């Protein structure tokens, strides 16, 4: 029911340690935006700044058109779900969910109605009189979500809400959150996670954050876009490696043909490949990194190959087989190919890989040629 706008937002600890810088972000009403990034990139800090639990060092934060930098958390119209649930251990589920409404001195009948409605929505009705310690992890997290829902906030904030759950519950609760979002199409949600499956499945847009110390104090936001945009057209090597599992292979190469499509000669692996990314005549001879996702790599026996290597390890997952090639140098990541189906007897064999031109990414100085 509200948009969230961040302008030039930064966070500096103790006057010198810069954690976040130049955050410009416009989150529309009804969006579910996911912040992802490696640990230490400040994604939780950014969420806590929106919540009001951390002070904003610079820039402005607007919720629903109103600057809220100096407005206390409870009056910002937000509700937050914590990773550790943060339920009040001495209160029953009903009391936990009613706490904020009691503080706001809402009439008792309205409180009961709000709690009952939220409990029904989250299948918590039969647990209303229990203490949190008598609930399972998944139920506790549902209570935490319910505590947010009863307040009908403008903006929901989720701080890694599924990280404390086991794998099966994580999937189930993820689907519940997605359904909750569908039931409340007007509510804005901001969701922090380090799990890219959560990011890809839940997000209407993903914000990839990078740690400032790693990118030489340039910017915090690496790229903003829909999940498939980030997957198909990452703007940098960082985003390319961060989205997708296993990570995209980056192979050192050189541009040997320019134009509508770009022809590349690989130093590592020895072959040549064509990319659908266009280039200019000035790019001729430029040193680049060629990016091919493991799932886009195709086995070939012909002379038209991009990469040739010796298979070192093979992991069969049934539906796919992961093939790890011998590294050219110990500090390099191994080249990985994800081939559909079952492949046996490959170990120690030489194999050639290629990929369709539209699946080949080209990065120069870490930046995609598509985004310069």
């Amino acid at each position: 029911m509200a948009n969230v706008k961040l302008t030039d937002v930064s966070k500096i600890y103790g006057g010198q340690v810069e954690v976040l810088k130049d955050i410009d972000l416009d989150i529309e009403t009804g969006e579910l935006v996911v912040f992802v990034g490696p640990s230490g990139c400040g994604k939780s800090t950014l969420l806590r700044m929106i919540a009001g639990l951390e002070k904003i060092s610079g820039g402005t934060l607007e919720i629903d058109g109103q600057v809220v930098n100096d407005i206390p958390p409870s009056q910002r119209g937000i509700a937050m779900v914590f990773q550790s649930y943060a339920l009040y251990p001495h209160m029953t589920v009903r009391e936990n969910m009613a706490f904020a409404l009691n503080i706001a001195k809402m009439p008792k009948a309205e409180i009961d109605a709000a709690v009952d409605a939220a409990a029904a929505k989250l299948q918590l009705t039969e647990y209303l009189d229990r203490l949190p310690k008598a609930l399972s992890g998944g139920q506790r997290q549902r209570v935490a979500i319910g505590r947010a829902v009863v307040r009908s906030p403008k903006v929901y904030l989720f701080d890694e809400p599924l990280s404390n759950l086991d794998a099966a519950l994580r999937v189930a609760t993820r689907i519940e959150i997605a359904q909750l979002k569908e039931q409340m199409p007007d509510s804005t949600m901001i969701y922090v996670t380090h799990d890219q499956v959560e990011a890809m499945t839940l997000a209407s847009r993903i914000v990839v954050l990078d740690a400032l110390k790693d990118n030489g104090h340039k910017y915090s936001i690496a790229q903003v876009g829909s999940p498939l945009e980030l997957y198909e057209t990452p703007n940098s090597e960082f985003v390319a490696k961060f989205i997708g599992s296993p990570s995209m292979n980056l192979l050192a190469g050189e541009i040997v043909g320019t134009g509508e499509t770009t022809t590349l000669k690989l130093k590592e692996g020895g072959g040549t490949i064509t990319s659908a990314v266009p280039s200019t005549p000035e790019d001729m001879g430029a040193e680049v990194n060629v990016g091919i996702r493991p799932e886009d790599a195709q086995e070939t026996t012909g002379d038209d190959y991009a990469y040739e290597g010796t298979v070192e390890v093979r992991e069969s997952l049934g539906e796919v087989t992961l093939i790890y090639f011998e590294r050219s140098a110990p500090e390099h990541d191994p080249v990985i190919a994800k081939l559909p189906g079952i492949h046996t007897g490959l170990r120690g064999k030489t194999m050639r890989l290629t990929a369709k031109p539209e699946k080949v990414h080209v990065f120069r100085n870490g930046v995609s040629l598509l985004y310069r």
Partner: protein
Amino acid sequence: MNPAVLGLITIILGVGGCVGYFWASNFVLDRFLFPASGPNAGRNINRANAIRPWLFLAPALLALGLYLAYPVVATFWLSLHDRAAGGNVFVGLDNYSQMLGEAKFREAIFNNMMWLIVVPAASTAFGLLAAQLTDRIGWGSLAKSLIFMPMAISFVGASVIWKLIYDARPEGTDQIGVLNAVVTFFGGEPQQWLTIQPWNNLMLMIVLIWIQTGFAMVILGAALRGIPEETVEAAILDGASPWQIFFKIKVPQIMPTIVVVWTTITLVVLKVFDIVLAMTNGQWETQVLANYMYDKLFRSFDWGVGSAAAMIIMLLVSPILVWNVYNARKEMR
């Protein structure tokens, strides 16, 4: 011989004796009684392990029996007897009824009740306040050290300090008591504080509160730090004021610890003796049970009534002690 040398010899004999006992008894058990060899090795090991704890506990049980259980029984026996020519005479509950008839005893019971209400409540409240307030300020640890320091002073030492604070000199002379010095500075008349009834009781209680607040602060401070920070943050987001966060989120979460602190101080209060003895000796209606017992036992040499008073104290302490241990265990789980 120099007392220091004697002391050293005692320590060496004591510690050596303990080590010697544990080693030797264990050796005899494993080597001669149930050796872990021969045809019954397995059975012998099980039996030795069943006996071993009792072997090691025996000295402690013996000492506790001698110095704790026996005195309880003996005191109970003494409380039912009177000393007469040629020995003790059984008098039934006469000592108890005589005691209940004494005004000084009723005064002691009443004062003790007052101590029981005021001191644990005040110490716990001040301790909680100090723990909360010192947690967030730069010089908090210095403040904590100062508040905790009275714990290191003996009750008699603390009484001497406070007796000086309450000290009164004739009007016109320099007041060395801090309280009277302040009063006269503002133009008041010096007071004999410890004779003003019933407030003199409160002045004695303040000494114990001064000592016990540090204890409450340390234990409750640790408990407060154990509260998950997220629950406090969630309460902030829910719109709770600092006041509401403290009383509705923090205090309920450390309730078990508060109960343990409260009952522990209650036990100290029930046994309070030194402070009253050193400051008023029960005059001006400040008598308490333990000092009453001491009066009877060692000043009047009325062993019967003195023992009866001791039994009353024990009866009051025991249920609280049991509850305290029960709560402390529950908290550990």
